[in-house]
């Protein structure tokens, strides 16, 4: 039984925001998959089903007090790493788009790193809770970096640069929120200068090419150029008001790669134009600021850090994905939360929202029950 008071404390505006973004997403996906001709496509149906499923999972996540999750943070840590290792289990793990990031559950493929992200956020929040205010020198950073590194290394191994960067962002933002000393941040930024070239050596050739392509956006010989160029054409041709929903043409006939997932924003840009695109960006901006606000309302540091982790996850995915479609960021396979087609992405995002709502509705210390 859920306490009525708790239900009352839910921030419904957050849910409304998510549902609005999701509905825009479904419309754009149906256009991207030619629903105006084909009728309701498999992708549209799957997306709605995933959302409903995600909603139920969200409710489930909300049901237990988040501090309970904190109690199990070590177990969650291990499970999350095991999830990432699951892709190496013969017969279960599969390779998609050259990356060993998926497990095949028969009916559905799941990208385990998506769920691991949630696990990582809970674990890291709990871990950092005790460190808040004590992250003053480099020595204090060693363990936090060490505990985060298995995720990042495993993801680089898959290879899934995008997800690895999501984890890095989550970790940095959470550390920052936990009070990481500005001096260390300064040193950290300086030390990036030698680290970046060094880290490039760990990247696979095709990842390097993508980064090279990003650095040289006008060189048509580099592999990402074509995708980015097509994406920019798609968005740019939307002009101010867009061609109208379902009236986009350029995203069809294979000009735009993986349009319903990674490049969904380009489809939205073509059909909804500058106005529509701006609305979507603003909705995401509001969502992020909302999360930031909710984080400040949590009753404990653990809760705040959980929300900040979710914020960091969404933040990175939004910036990377939208930035990529407009040629501001290198091309990776990171999805746009609630908008991109994909079950794993929707469910993970809903789980994350569930965590946020969970923390927020239990913001009052006086609350009892569960």
């Amino acid at each position, binding site marked *: 039984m859920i306490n009525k008071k708790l239900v009352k404390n839910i921030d419904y505006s957050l849910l409304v925001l998510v549902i609005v973004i999701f509905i825009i997403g479904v419309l754009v996906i149906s256009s991207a998959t030619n629903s105006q001709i084909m009728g309701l496509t498999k992708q549209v149906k799957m997306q709605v089903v995933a959302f409903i499923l995600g909603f139920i999972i969200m409710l489930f996540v909300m049901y237990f007090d988040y501090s309970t999750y904190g109690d199990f943070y070590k177990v969650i840590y291990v499970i999350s790493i095991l999830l990432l290792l699951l892709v190496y289990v013969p017969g279960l793990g599969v390779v998609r788009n050259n990356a060993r990031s998926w497990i095949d559950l028969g009916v559905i493929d799941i990208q385990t790193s998506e769920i691991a992200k949630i696990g990582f956020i809970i674990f890291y929040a709990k871990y950092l809770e005790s460190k808040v205010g004590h992250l003053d020198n480099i020595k204090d950073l060693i363990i936090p970096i060490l505990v985060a590194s298995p995720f990042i290394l495993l993801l680089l191994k898959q290879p899934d640069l995008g997800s690895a960067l999501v984890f890095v962002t989550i970790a940095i*933002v959470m550390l*920052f*929120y936990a*009070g990481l000393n*500005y001096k260390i941040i300064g040193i950290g930024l300086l030390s990036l200068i030698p680290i970046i070239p060094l880290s490039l050596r760990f990247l696979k050739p095709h990842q390097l090419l993508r980064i090279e392509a990003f650095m040289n956006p006008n060189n*048509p*010989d580099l*592999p990402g150029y*074509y995708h980015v160029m*097509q994406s*920019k*054409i*798609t*968005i*740019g*041709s*939307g*002009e*101010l008001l867009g061609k109208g929903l379902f009236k986009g*043409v*350029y995203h*069809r*006939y*294979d*000009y735009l790669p993986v349009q319903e997932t990674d490049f969904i924003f380009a489809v939205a*840009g073509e059909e909804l*134009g*500058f106005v529509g*695109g*701006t609305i979507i*960006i*603003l909705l*995401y*901006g509001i969502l*992020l*600021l909302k999360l*930031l606000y909710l*984080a*400040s309302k949590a009753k404990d540091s653990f809760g705040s850090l959980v929300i*900040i982790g979710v*914020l960091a996850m969404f*933040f990175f995915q939004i*910036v990377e994905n*939208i*930035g990529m479609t*407009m040629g*501001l960021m290198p091309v990776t396979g990171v999805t746009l939360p609630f908008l991109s087609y994909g079950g794993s992405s929707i469910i993970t995002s809903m789980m994350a929202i569930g965590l946020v709502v969970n923390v927020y509705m239990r913001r009052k210390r006086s609350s009892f029950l569960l």
Partner: protein
Amino acid sequence: MLKKIFERQNVIGIIIIVIVVVLITRLANLTIINGEYYSEKAINNRIKKISEVAKRGEIFDRNGELLAGNIPAFTIQFMGDGLNSETFNQVAIKAIDLLDSNGENHIELPIVYNGGNIEYSYDLDILEWLSSNGYNGYVSASTVFNNIRIREQISDELNHYEAQNFMLLKGIKLPISVKTMKYINEMHKENFLKSYGLDINTSAKEALEYLRNIKSYGIDESFSDENAIKILTIRNAIKEKGYLAYDPIKMADNVSQKTAVLIEEMGMDLPGVNIAIEPIRYYPNNKLASHILGYLGKISSVREVEYYINNLDYKRNDLIGKTGIEGEFEEVLKGDDGYRYIEVDAYGRFVREVGDSYDMLESLSPKSGNDVRLTLDIELQRVAEDSLEKWINAINNGGTYEDEWGNVTYDVFDNAETGAVAVVDVKTGEVLTIASYPSYNPNLFSTGISIVDWNSLSPENARNPLAPRPLYNIATLTAVQPGSVFKMITGIAAVEQGLDPDRKIYSDGYIEIGNNSFGCWLWNDYHAKHGPTDLYKALEVSCNYYFFNLAMGMDYKNNRSLGIDMNAATLIDYAKMFGLNEATGIEVSEAVRGVPDEEKKSNAVLWGLRIKLSEIIDEYFPAFIDDDKKQDTIKEILSWAEDKPSRTSIINKLIELGAYDDFYFIAELADIIKYDYFNRIGWFEGDTLNMAIGQGDHMYTPIQVARYIMAIANDGYLYDLSLVKSADEKQYIKNIDTEPLFEDSDTLDAIRQGMYQVAQGTQGTARRYFAEFPVDIGAKTGTAEKEGKIPPVDEEEYLINNLPLIDPKIDISDLDLKTEEILITRNEELASFEKEKNDTDDLERIEKLTNKIEYLITSGYLNRESAMREAIKELSDLELNDTIINQYREEYNSYAWFAGFAPYDDPEIAVVVFLPQGGHGGYAAPIARDIFAHYLKLEKGEDSDK
């Protein structure tokens, strides 16, 4: 305050806001600032302009039978601009492999993999052409051009362009651009290299290496050269399109349905490859009337590029009419190409047609070319061509042939291989048939002719001017002596000058003028005379003596004047009156050589001297440094002709000019020059006599003769001939105000009466062919001799086979030895020139030596047959010269002419048959007979009105 800003939460908030602003700014940049640019790009990428070839106008015969139409053909197109280089490369290799394995022709890179070597196909083509034309190794285009000019006896008067045109008409197509005096392929190669910014001397291997390394093509090490060439074939074709790069390129034309289906099925594996259906020219009757219809070809010469591409906006790959009606009416038939827009997917595959005015793109429908309707009667044409082939074969084999209009017996003339027919409607001047045998199938040219096919249409023995040349329209382009067919002109002239056609003049067999005897054929062959002869009989029996009399206005037997004013000028005037010195008016190319006159005659004599001198002058002069010098010397000698110099003066002049300083030796050469040539210059009585019977320097085409016969048949209306009834939606109307040549019809009545007797008279020269023919006709046969001997196909074989006749004392093994010896000496001689070339710094000297070497090689100095000829001269004790050695060469058979009209009472058509080596004039008659029978719709058994 500062502290507040640095609150963790605020920092994150600010970052979020900054990022949102950055993203929106970027979005504004793409959609608003550059929105139009991207919109345009989106359209350009998706929407492709496809040109639509206009249907070429059709050609019909007078009854509306289709002679040239269009049929759909499958074309393989490639549109690769949406493909990344990896896919592009795979598709290029796969598609070309597929075409290769199905034996389809496709576009090629001018760099080829030739037995392990990388070479320019341009170079290979030049070498192949040279070797098939008897050159070993590379020689320059100008040398080849000049060699062929001389071989074909093309007058110096003509400039290079005119000479080239002449060659083209003769069916000699040189792959040489006259403007630059380079091989066409050489120019193509230079353009190809220039288009990549490469030096024109870049080797094929270097060029390939350069192309392979163009980064955007993405051809890495893993591709073999062979596969790289396939990829570059497509890349190069796209590059050649220049600003039309969005247009699909044509990979292969006219592929089989099987290949088309195969490619269609592989669609998914071959992104960018499409099948298109394009109309190609089709000639339903194949060879029939091919010389009139003409053929199509690629725009190739500099002139064509200038005219069609630069002035008329033709596309580089368009086919144009080259000859015949296709050529003359190119702009009428062509039509205007249109275009339409289609939407394609990212791989360049067709998605859908774009309707009109989508995105403000309007398509333009192609406008079909206009039809041309000819005056030809294709059924009559068919009869003429079948008959030509049948009777030429018969003459070739000899024997007796059964025929419904009377059996025919021929002696063998095994050089009879060619022939021509012209049939004219005498009431209108419309040409009903122009046939030339052998002919060719113009369908071979419909998508550009292959080298193999082209070679099969070239003469086997190019040195023989009368060898069969299938592309050559004998009926309109071969101008030769008409023989006795000319006698009507002589008759008309005399009657118009006052001769009574009934007056009998005694024909006494032969006339002696000076040392020359001018005999009637009856005297020459049988030592008989025609005796008292009037005009009718003279025509009937083709009596030379009678027409000798008329030509000079003399009764030679009694040595008195006939009382009429006749001379060479009169004959020439009447020949001109009957259009023999002008074009007939037909709408395809025709040659006009015309009537003889003194100048032409002296030019002919000088031409003969020139040929003679280039053969023998080397014996009398120390070695010429180069060909130019030799030609200058010859020209100098020719220029003396006007002054009629004495023998001694010629000898002195020759020595002055640099001949060996040996008076008696040089006298030999002077004698040849003076007595064999200079003394023949000028107009003599004998020339007039020859002219009267159609020998000498007359040069008429069969179509000219047909027009002249028409004017006899229709009471003197010398209509312009026409081949086109309507074109460009206009009627072609000619001859509305043609006036008859004579006020009354008496003269022509008399001539027609004589021609009636040729066919129906008891002694008529064509009687044996028309005795059983149910309708009366007028006719005249003619036989004229072709001077000279036929150059053998294999010179060496000729020399060996005829050695016992040339000099029986020469032993064949000695000859072999001597030949080898000479070859070695000559090779060493040339090698020493080459050495000298390398040793000297004198550029002028180097050029001269280069020319000399080239000249000697190309004129066959190093060939076995030339060395053998020299060896024979050296080994023999006899005074041998080329004329003596050549005397066993085969003679040309005589030209055979038949001219006639029918029906006699009310002539409807004039028919002229010409068989270049047909032997006897009468031999051409059965062909005319077949044509008369078809035209008059005669059936066997129909009773004659005789």
